[in-house]
């Protein structure tokens, strides 16, 4: 039983890592907006809540780093940082990384709650945001 609990905790913590990426648009292909984007951007962040209410652990938004990708084991306990607002914080960092003053287009967010993996004991809360970065 103890091994199972350790395994479950390790699995949960591993899933807390947040992920963000800027994919540079190295092509002359235009989007349906008739513009050539600078990059695509996606960010996703996870948190775990006991019975969907009590925050257990969470990934953190993207606020620093020298690369166009962030996939870190970056966990904060007893907090819930997986929110649309924090995804916009990551987006602001992406816009800074893309350099200059940019516009965004096709901003979409999806929020998922998954209780089934833990027999409804722990909710796995995921917030995903994506957009195109235009010149």
């Amino acid at each position, binding site marked *: 039983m103890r091994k199972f609990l350790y395994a479950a905790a390790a699995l949960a913590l591993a899933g807390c890592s947040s992920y963000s990426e800027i994919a540079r648009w190295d092509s002359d292909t235009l989007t349906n907006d008739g513009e050539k984007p600078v990059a695509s951007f996606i960010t996703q962040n996870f948190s775990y809540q006991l019975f969907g209410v009590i925050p257990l652990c969470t990934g953190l938004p993207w606020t620093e780093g020298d690369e166009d990708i962030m996939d870190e084991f970056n966990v904060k306990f007893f907090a819930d940082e997986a*929110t*649309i607002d924090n995804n*916009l914080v990551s987006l602001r960092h992406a816009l800074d990384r893309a350099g200059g003053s940019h516009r965004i287009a096709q901003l*979409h*967010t*999806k929020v998922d709650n998954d209780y089934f993996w833990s027999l409804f004991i722990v*909710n796995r809360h995921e917030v995903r945001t994506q957009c195109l970065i235009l010149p």
Partner: protein
Amino acid sequence: MKTKYENFADAGRALFKPLAFVGVMALLVGAAGCASVYRTTPGSLTGMGYKDADAIPLEQVYITTTGYHFLWSIPLASGDLRWNDEKQSINGGTCLFSDMVGVDELQNALLKIAESRNCDVIDVMFDDSDTTFASLSYGGIVGALFGSSHMGVSGVLVPKKAQTESQEVSDIQEGGAK
């Protein structure tokens, strides 16, 4: 001396109560979280230039609802997406024995929120998924009889175009007067 099958049966009986407790908790948690509205705090999009928007977007909204059903067609419970005029928001609770998981309901909820903020909405995108609880009954048929469907819609609220245009006209007139 018990056989391994008898030991297995004993273990099953011992697990029944905890699993029953988990099942009850699951119903409570599931029913409580059937419909939700996630909104960014006003101003969080300030400073971001937005294509197809003549003005600064005010906020991003994501509305999600989940329904639970028996045999794919008999609704057990679903999120309540009806608009509450007093609260100026959707109810967000649970409707028993009703199926409010649909594009029409989500679209109405999104449009009501936009209207209440005196906004237009851009970049509307829907998503949906379905699942059965077969895995919870370890391959048994009981779990497969029950399922859930989930739908969500994302949109960005921008000030109404007519309002923006009239604001621009008044700005020009004010500038001319000066």
